[in-house]
Every structure is written in structure tokens, then in C-alpha cells.
């Protein structure tokens, strides 16, 4: 059951109603928080089981492990014992992730290395495969719980003693499949002091969900109708068609992931919870460094706090800083998937940020023309890197890039006029709304104080999604990570 499915939308009002009634019935009671948390935990696990029944077991395993480690590091805060156990704890927690997501990749790399060193007589033709099914959202819930353990170890957060509260922190259903990756200090206090559901939260939640649907169904899935056929058969398409597909993919990925995140934040808000906003108009960034302050914000924050800073951050000289940036983005690449394409994608982002740092390109240019050029250049660099992110192998990615830079001849995809019109509508509406939000933040027609205006705006938004969105409940791209 995914957030944009009809099944989910049908069941959500019922679940919300039950939750509201239970919370209302126990209002004022000292058990209110624990009962609400228990109910939400049951809802969350039911949601996870509807995805993959076995996945619930893994989430429970990670929950139990990190809960135990949290209590342990809380009790032995700052001691030698804690320092001894932290690497062991990290390995134990990461083990399911490594096994399920990276076992094939590691085994394959090992076999290739053996072959390269002449340790095997025959060439390795078939990639290794253990045939594991990757539990949904494993990278997200593993990182969220390891972040909690690390925060407890560093004394930045107190260990959670109530197992139900902690179970909900790890498995909260809106964010389980694709984040955002919440910090314990943000989510746990909300769980423990059950937020009262107010009407404005429900209204805001519905708004955010509708906006998320717009990004997913009207923008991302519409662009996918161009991107998918081109990338599936890129060898027969011209360089310009491949280039256009690469640009559309950049926008598709944004619509898809930002759409999911908005829906997740919206569903959380319906239940009174405030989750971190994962995107801030990333394609208006004037540098790749700034891009990462606007794209997948919760992951960037996690990597900064749990990889970059522990490695020394920028406190140990220039060379070490560059090394740390590269290492952090290599981790980001590996986190996205067990494939060399993701590692290259991460390294490109890391390398470009080193160059920007070297030349001092971090500040926002004052000249509007220079700013526009820098935004365009940043977009093109990010767009280039997304080709590695999208293609199944390095060979495919390089072939697509070759076709683009050599203006290779070939077919062009000729979508119907209706499709062109709908793609145009998606692009223009996205650009206009993002532009207004970026440069005229005070202009908020959709947040009008006039209730009638808000109702009309919501009706129109839902109507647009229903009439021009691609309503096939397709899966979100980031669920694969």
C-alpha cells in the first residue's frame, strides 16, 4: 500500500477517524499518549505488512537492537565501555542493511577483483546473486535508528525507555518507505507528548497531500511518459532526445521524491505530527553545495552529523576537508544503491563541491545575470550526475552521455499533442509556483485567510490532479532505495 494508491486514500479517513475518536475518548488521561502511540504503532506495522510482511520483522529487529543499544549507551555515557562498543554496535545495526542491500554487490566486486588478480581461471560472466528481497525502506529506517544511537552515544539526546514510543519512532508509517529521516530530538518528544489534533492541522495535512499528489501525478508521472521510453531504448534515440529525456528525468525525480515527501509530511500532519520538510526548491540552487542544502534535506543533515563531522568536518585542514566531503558523498552514493553508478554519482557531487570550495563559489552572487548563469550551470551539473543515477550500469550511463555530447543522430520521440500539452502544463505550473515561492515568498494566495478562497483553491487543485494527473498509482522512485 503506497501513499498515492486508491487503497491507501480509501482507508486513511477511517484510520484517522478511529485515531481521533480514541484520542478524544482518552483525552486528559495520563495514558492518553501511550494509547495513541500504541494505536499508531499498530497502524504503522499494518501498513508495513501490507507492503512486505517480512519487512515488519526486520523493522522490529532493528528497533529492538537500537533500543537496547540506546539504553546501553545512555547508561555508559562517556565511558571507555561505550567507546569500545560503539563500532560493534554500528556493525550489528548495519548488518541487515549490508546483507540485504549490498551482499550481491560485494560478492560480485570480490569475484571481479579475484579475476583481475588472476585468482580465478575463468572470467566472471554472471553477476553474483543471493536473490534477497530488499525490505522496503531499509536504508531509511536503519539510518534513522542508527542516528538515534549515535545521538545517545554523544549525549545529544536521552535514551528512550518506553519501547512502544521507540517502536513508533522507527516505524511511523508516513515516513517508513522513503523518509524523511527524522531525528530523535524532533519526533520522540512529539510521540511522548501526543500532539492534540486541531482542525488546522487536518486542513494543512490535506493541502500538503494534495500538493504532493500534484507533484507526483501531474509532474513526475507525466514526465515519465517521455523519459522511460527514451532511456529504455536510448541507443536508437538521437543525442538531443536523450538530452531532453535527461532534463525531464531531473524534474521527474524532483516531482516524485518531493511529492512523496509532501504526502508523508501531510499524512503526519493529519495525525498532529510535524515532520521535517525535505525539499526547498533545489533547482534554484546557485551551487552544488547549496543544492544539497535544498535536496533531501534530512539525508544531508544525517550525513553531515553522522559522517562528515565525525570524520573531522572542516576542522583539520583543507586537504582533509576535501577528503571528508568526497567520503561523505561516496557514502551518500552507496546509501542510494549497490551499484557503481551511484558511487560515481556521489563522487561527482563530492568533487564538484570541492571545486566550489577551492574557488570560493559558496556565496550567492549579487549580480542577477551571474546568479541566473550559476543556477543554470548548477542544474546542468546535477542533471549530468542524474544520468549515472538513472542508468542501470556505468556502460549505459557513459553511452547516453556520449550520445548527448556527440549530438548522435537517431530517432526522436514524438509524443501526441495531448501529451506535449500536458507535459508543458506540468513544467510551466511547476516553474511558476517554484519561482514565486523562491523569489516572492510573501505572495501566498493558497494560504489566504479567506476560508472560501482556501476551499476553492483546494477544489481546483484536486480537480487538476484528477483530470490531468497520471492516476495509475505508480510506485515512488525513492522506495527502491
Amino acid at each position, binding site marked *: 500500500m503506497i501513499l498515492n494508491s*486508491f487503497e491507501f486514500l480509501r482507508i486513511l479517513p477511517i484510520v484517522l477517524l478511529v485515531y481521533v475518536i480514541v484520542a478524544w475518548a482518552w483525552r486528559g488521561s495520563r495514558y492518553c499518549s501511550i494509547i495513541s502511540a500504541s494505536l499508531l504503532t499498530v497502524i504503522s506495522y499494518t501498513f508495513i505488512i501490507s507492503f512486505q510482511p517480512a519487512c515488519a520483522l526486520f523493522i522490529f529487529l532493528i528497533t529492538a537492537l537500537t533500543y537496547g543499544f540506546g539504553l546501553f549507551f545512555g547508561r555508559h555515557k562517556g565511558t571507555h565501555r561505550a567507546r569500545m562498543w560503539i563500532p560493534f554496535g554500528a556493525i550489528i545495526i548495519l548488518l541487515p542493511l549490508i546483507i540485504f542491500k549490498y551482499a550481491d554487490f560485494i560478492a560480485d566486486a570480490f569475484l571481479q577483483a579475484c579475476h583481475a588478480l588472476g585468482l580465478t581461471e575463468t572470467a566472471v560472466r554472471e553477476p553474483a546473486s543471493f536473490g534477497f528481497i530488499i525490505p522496503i525502506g531499509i536504508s531509511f529506517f536503519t539510518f534513522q535508528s542508527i542516528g538515534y544511537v549515535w545521538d545517545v552515544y554523544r549525549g545529544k539526546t536521552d535514551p528512550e525507555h518506553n519501547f512502544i514510543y521507540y517502536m513508533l519512532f522507527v516505524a511511523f508509517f508516513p515516513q517508513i518507505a522513503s523518509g524523511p529521516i527524522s531525528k530523535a530530538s524532533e519526533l520522540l518528544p512529539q510521540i511522548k507528548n501526543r500532539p492534540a489534533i486541531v482542525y488546522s492541522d*487536518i486542513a494543512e495535512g490535506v493541502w500538503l497531500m494534495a500538493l504532493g499528489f500534484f507533484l507526483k501525478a501531474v509532474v513526475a508521472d507525466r514526465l515519465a511518459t517521455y523519459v522511460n521510453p527514451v532511456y529504455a531504448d536510448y541507443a536508437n534515440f538521437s543525442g538531443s532526445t536523450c538530452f531532453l529525456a535527461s532534463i525531464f528525468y531531473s524534474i521527474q525525480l524532483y516531482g516524485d521524491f518531493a511529492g512523496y515527501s509532501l504526502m508523508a509530511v501531510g499524512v503526519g500532519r493529519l495525525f498532529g505530527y510535524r515532520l521535517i520538510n525535505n525539499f526547498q526548491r533545489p533547482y534554484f540552487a546557485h551551487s552544488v553545495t547549496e543544492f544539497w542544502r535544498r535536496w533531501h534535506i534530512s539525508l544531508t543533515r544525517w550525513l553531515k552529523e553522522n559522517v562528515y563531522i565525525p570524520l573531522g568536518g572542516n576542522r583539520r585542514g583543507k586537504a582533509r576537508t576535501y577528503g571528508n566531503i568526497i567520503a561523505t558523498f561516496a557514502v551518500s552514493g552507496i546509501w542510494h544503491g549497490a551499484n557503481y553508478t551511484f558511487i560515481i554519482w556521489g563522487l561527482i557531487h563530492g568533487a564538484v563541491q570541492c571545486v566550489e570550495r577551492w574557488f570560493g563559489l559558496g556565496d550567492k552572487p549579487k549580480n542577477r545575470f551571474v546568479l541566473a548563469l550559476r543556477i543554470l550551470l548548477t542544474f546542468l551539473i546535477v542533471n549530468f550526475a542524474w544520468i549515472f543515477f538513472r542508468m542501470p550500469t556505468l556502460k549505459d550511463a557513459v553511452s547516453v552521455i556520449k550520445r548527448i555530447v556527440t549530438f548522435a543522430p537517431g*530517432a526522436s520521440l514524438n509524443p501526441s499533442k495531448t501529451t506535449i500539452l500536458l507535459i508543458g502544463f506540468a513544467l510551466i505550473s511547476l516553474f511558476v509556483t517554484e519561482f514565486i515561492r523562491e523569489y516572492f515568498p510573501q505572495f501566498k494566495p493558497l494560504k489566504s485567510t479567506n476560508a472560501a478562497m482556501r476551499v476553492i483553491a483546494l477544489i481546483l487543485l484536486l480537480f487538476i490532479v484528477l483530470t490531468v494527473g497520471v*492516476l495509475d498509482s505508480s510506485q515512488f522512485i525513492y522506495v527502491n532505495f
Partner: protein
Amino acid sequence: MKSKAIKFVLATLSVIIGLMVLDFSFGVAVEYARKNAKGGDTHNNYYILNELRDSVIIMGSSRANHHYVTDSIAARLHTSVYNCGIDGNGILLSYAFLKNMVSRGACPSMIIYELFPIFDLYENDDHTNPLTHLRPAYNAPGVSEVLADIDPDEAIKNRLASYRYNSVFIQNISDAISPKQLTIRGYKPIYGKITTDFQEKINNNVPLDTLKIKYFDKFLRLCDANDIRLIFVTSAQFHKTDLTPSVKRFLREHDITPYGRYRYIDFSDNPDFNCNKELFADPSHLNDDGARLFTRLLLDSITAR
């Protein structure tokens, strides 16, 4: 608190009622446009689902749609012909169309079916391709059956006109005002020739799709029950692609062979067409010249027996 609750309920009701009113008005407008379409895909779809009474029909995917020249067939067989081939579709849509015709008492006497395993037999998609073409008539016999098998929720979702005419309303309105697409009794000619070299992608390891097989069987039974002469054809191909062993076995089991109960005519290795850039608009489709040559050869073959 009480006033806030009342405001919230009122706002919720306003959104629901407003959306329903907008949806109903939208449905009335688009349905009017569909009924009054002067041409294009809208008229084609409306005609097939509501008015078609021709005695020979062509069915299948875009290859059916672009390869079978209806006026040539009509002239040669002295009967009325309509091409019901639809891009990206196969047996699921064809069954729904045929069942709909039969239930309207508009049973054709002969069907020429362009066999294309990707859409007729292979497991290669999520079966959603026919939805756009079937939603406008979601309650009709045959149509509701296929829709329910693709997604049981379709019956509920289709009550919303904005869902039913999702994305296609632009085409519906434009076809009512000024249709741009030329069709000759459903046949859509393509002009132009292949200008670049294409790489062929072959995958011999595609399993057969259980839902498609189910509807293939139903399609055969429906033809038998209504005495419809059924001819399967694989039309000309730029790159000759052999049928996979599983498809060959399937055809044999159903007696779809050159001299079988259901006749099968295979043009896939015809040397006049293979790798002939003059006759193809793209690697999968003949251009109008190619289609006319192919139709002539096919009619020779059909009438010779």
C-alpha cells in the same frame, strides 16, 4: 471550539460538494464533446463502442492500426471494413470491444487479428493500457468485465468523470472542434521512411501472461460461439523476429496454424519487407506505401484459399 468544529465540517462539505458539482459539469461537457466528435481517436473510440456494425474488422495493436488499409480490403472483399487496432493494446482491449459488439447485436462476420505477442501474450506490462479506451463505457458489457480484472476498484473510480476522462478530455474536446488526425475507417496511415539504423532488441525469455491467456481463450470462444471467422496474421517486420518457443507451443495448442482451425498467416520473414527502409516509417511500423503493399499481399493470401 464548537464554532471551529462547525467551520471545519462546513469546509469539508464545501470541498466535497464543490468537487462533485465541478466533476458532474465536466462529465456532461466531455460526454457531449465525445458524442459530437468529428474525427480523430475520440470519434474512433466512440464509433467502436457505440455504432460499429461492419462485417469485417481488424483488431490488435498499432501494427494492426497502421498496416491494414481498410478501403483496399473493403474494395476487394466487397464488404464494410473497420480497423479497431489501437496503439499499445492487444487481446484485453480487443476482447472488450468484441464482447461489446456482440452484446449490441453487431457481430462481425470476420476478424483479421494482428498477432503481436508483446501485447497479446507476453508478460510485459501492468495491463493498464486498455483503461483509457474503456473507461468512457465502463458499464458496458465486456468492458466492465475487463476493467474489473485489471483493477477491481475501477468500478468505483469511474463514477468520477474527472477520472474517467483523465488526460483524454483534451483530445475529446479538440476532436469535437477540429480533428487533426486523418483516419480511413480506423486505418491510420503513417508517412515517411526510416532514416537511421536501428538496433534490434531481442528478449527470448519473456513468460506468458496469465490474464492475457485467459482473455485470448475467451476471445476464441466468443468467436466460435458467434460464428465469426478468425484469421491471425503477423504482418511484415523490418527485423524478422522469431516467435519464442512458448508462443509457438501456445499457437499449436490452440490450433492457430497455417492450415489449422484458426488460420495463421505469417509475413514476418517476407523478403520484400525485411530491412526495406522504403516501406517502413519506423522499425515496428510500415509506412502507407508498405501498408498498401502488405494489404494487397495479405488479401491475395486470404482470397487464394
